[in-house]
Structure formats: C-alpha cells, structure tokens
C-alpha cells in the first residue's frame, strides 16, 4: 500500500528577476515501510520538496497525498528531522522529545514510557534530564530523531539530518538510523547530497537535478540488510554509486 503519492508537483518562487522554477512535475510513490533517499546537488530543490511534504510550504501545482488525503497544511501524522537538531535549550532532553505531545495535546502521561523507550532505542538512556547544551552534535540529532518519532507519525521526513556532523559521527549515525529503521519500519524520506549515504541507507534512491528541480532517476538498491559500513567497499555497492554519479556528470555537474 502506498503511503505517499506525489503527482505533477511543481513549485515556482517569484523573485526580483522573474520566477524561479524550483520543482517541475515531480512524480513518485512511496510504499508503506519504504526507505527513500532523495539525492541531488545543492539548489536542486530537495529542501523545497521536503517543506511541501511537511505541509509548511504550499505547492504551485500538483498535489501530495498522504494515506489518501491531500497535504494542504501542517499535519499531525508527519515527523520532521531538520539539518540542525533545532532543540529548545530551555527544555530538557525529555521535554524536547515531548514537544509534539505538548503541541498536539496527546497527554504526557501516556507518552512518557514511549519517550523513554525511544530514547533508549537511540542510545540515550539516562540523558532524559540533561539539557541540549550538555550533549554532543550527534546526540542532539538523536534527540531530534526521537522527537520526530514520539507521536508515531505515518512518515518520517529527514532533511540532510547528518549534514552538519563530522564524517566519523555521520557514519555512526547512518548505522544507527538503519538500526532504528529496521526495528520500527517507519516510512522514511531522507534528503541528502551524499550519494554513498543515500545508497547505504535507502531501498530506493530518487536522483534529482536542478533548475528546474526534477527527478531524473529512480534507483532500486538491492543490497541485503542489515548493511555494515564495510558494505561500501563491496562490489555490489560501487555500481549504484557509479551510475548515480554518472547521471550527474552527464548533466555537466561536478559530483555532489
């Protein structure tokens, strides 16, 4: 069953020197429990796409359906992880995780155990009373992931969530995310500009090109899970990366 159906989606921004075509006729479908990565160079409209999916930006044309209903504004069944953790420094880790519960008045009592379970799933047991500034960048992003999962959304949107982390932490977080995903099987749309990250994580990689932003390729990644970091050195890994990179090069873009 499909969770997300994007149909003929376009987005134009009007600026001083005419209108910018950020997205043009995007079409794709996402099935329940699928991990989708959207990869493309900066400025290809990935973040615009995500904002439309999150309901915080209206599309110019076309529509996005989430479990059959059209996304017209912010919804309660979507969890978003941004590039920066976006934690509130005046809230403790637990309170940050419970933010969606507070906003949507779901009842703290019923979600306290869920929050603790999720925190332990992302490896943050014992940190619930800490404050964001006491955590490292990677830990903060784990809190952000926990927060995005707390209200059990139909879909998890991730906008270059590990882009601000150092390379080592980033690999670690990729492994962690895969583990969390294998355990929860949430539908994920993961935006990145790293081809190898996309191939490592995703069931399907959507390749985007800029001006106007459109989906040029839809690559099924058939590497068995769980994938270890060493999988990146395996012969079956390279062709995916190579063919995606080839797509960008053909378009005259230096690799992203």
């Amino acid at each position, binding site marked *: 069953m499909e969770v997300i159906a994007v149909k003929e989606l376009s987005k134009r921004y009007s600026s001083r020197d005419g209108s910018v075509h950020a997205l043009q006729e995007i079409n794709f479908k996402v099935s329940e429990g699928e991990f989708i990565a959207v990869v493309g160079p900066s400025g290809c409209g990935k973040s615009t796409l995500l*904002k439309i999916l*999150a*309901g*915080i930006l209206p599309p110019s044309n076309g529509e996005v359906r989430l479990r059959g209903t059209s996304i017209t*504004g*912010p*919804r*309660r069944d*979507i969890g*978003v992880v*941004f590039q*920066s953790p*976006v934690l*509130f*420094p*005046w809230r403790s880790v637990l309170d940050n995780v419970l*933010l*969606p519960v*507070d*906003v*949507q008045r779901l009842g703290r009592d019923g979600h306290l155990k869920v929050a603790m379970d999720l925190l332990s799933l992302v490896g943050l047991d014992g940190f619930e009373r800490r*404050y964001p*500034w006491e955590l490292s960048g990677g830990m903060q992003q784990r809190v952000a992931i926990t927060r995005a999962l707390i209200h059990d959304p139909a879909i998890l949107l991730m906008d270059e969530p590990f882009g601000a982390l150092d390379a080592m932490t980033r690999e670690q977080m990729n492994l962690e995310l895969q583990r969390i995903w294998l355990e929860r099987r949430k539908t994920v749309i993961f935006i990145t500009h790293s081809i190898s990250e996309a191939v490592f994580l995703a069931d399907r990689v959507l390749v985007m090109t800029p001006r106007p932003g459109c989906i040029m390729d839809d690559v099924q990644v058939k590497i068995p899970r769980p994938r270890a970091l060493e999988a990146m050195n395996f012969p079956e890994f390279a062709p995916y990366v190579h063919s995606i990179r080839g797509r960008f090069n053909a378009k005259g873009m230096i690799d992203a």
Partner: protein
Amino acid sequence: MKGFWNVALTILLFCSSILAWELIVRAFEIPTFIFPAPSKVAMALWRGFASGLYQKHLYYTLLETVLGFLLGSALGFFLGTAVALNRYVEYFFYPYIVMFQSLPKVALAPLIVVWFGLGLKSQVINTALVAFFPLLVNTMVGLRSADEDRMNLMRSLAASENQIFWMLRLPNALPFVMAGLDVAMIFALIGAIVAEFVGARAGLGMLIQSMNFNMDVSGQFSVLLILSIVGLLLNRCILLIRRRVLFWDPSEKERLERERIAL
C-alpha cells in the same frame, strides 16, 4: 589560596585609599563644605541612621523605585508584545513610540509634578516612564528573534499561533527581556531621584537637595554612598532572578564564567 590573596589585596587597597583621602583632606585643610574627609562622611552617615531620618527617606525612595520599575516594565513588556505580534499596532503606534523614546524622559518630570502633585504618585509615574523603554524595545526585538528553523519545526507540528507564542517566542525572548530589566532597574533609580529633585515631600533625592541648600556636603556624600549601595543591591536582585530564569542561555553561562574570573 589565590582567592584569599585577592580578597586581602582588595581590602588593603580600599583601606589605603580611604586613608589617603583622609590624610590629603587634613594636610591641605580642605574645608568640609567643599570636600569632606571620610571620617566626616561616616559621622554624617551615623547621625542620619541614628536619628531614623535616612531609614524614612530610603524607604520612600525604594518604594518609588520598585513600584515605578514594576509598573514601567510591565507596561513596556505588554506594549512590546502587542507591537511585536500585531502589524497594525506596529504600523499605527510605533512612530509615536519612537518619537517619545528620543525625548529625554526626565525633561517630563516638571510637567508630571504639575499634573500629579508632589506625592508618591508623581514620582512613581516618572520612574515608570523612564523604566518603560528598555523593556518595550527588548521585548519587541526578543519576540521577533525566533529562529526560522524553530518556527518551521513548530509549524510542521501544526502548532497554533498561540502555542508558538508560549512555547517558542516567549522563552526565546527571555534573554532580551532580562537584559531590558537589568537596564530598567538602574533607570528606575535615576528616574526616582530626578523626580524627587523636581519636587517631592520625601526621598533620598529630596534629602540631597535640602542638604545642598544647607551646605551639608558630608551629608550629601553619605546619601550618595547609600544610593550607590542601593543601586548595586537592586542590580544584584535582577541578576539573581536572571540566573534562575536563564539557566539555559549560553551567554548567561559566559557571564558566570567571567564573574568567577573577576572574583
């Protein structure tokens, strides 16, 4: 051990400068009505407190300052919130607010005495006027400074404007509001003293003026001493509140760190 030496050195420096002051005044026979020796100031201080005169005026000035501070900062906070949240309020009122802000508020003190008399009311109003602006401006800036990512997060959760205000904008504005309170407290004391200069029945400012007429310069020095200590203590009060409220603010932690070094 280093802390001990620092404290000892501070005390030594203080005592020796007081001693030098005393000796210079005596050696050059400077008349008391020009520049009194510390011993004369201490005596004036003692007499003032022993007779109960200073307590009475101190209480009055403190009352004006605190009431004016509370009134002015509350008004500043609410108006700042209204301006920050409502474009119409901003459009119609802000030009006047800016005009009024560039006016030295103490220049209004004589008018306020004409309108409200010599009583407490008039001094509180004057104090409130002076304490009002730091809060207004800081609240406005603070409420508008919410980071775009945080706004997007709240929007993606389908938060109402009300929730965005209470859960994001307001806590986010607190460092600004507290900085405003810091300034407003000092301004309030200035406002109160100026109001008393212009016309009042009691208060340390009025006391300074009447001492001035009587050429009681050591008395004036002793009141100035009290005022500086009052200012310091009021400032400390705000600082204590600030530390409690802003325990999460990185700039607050930096401040703590600096103060620890200074001590």
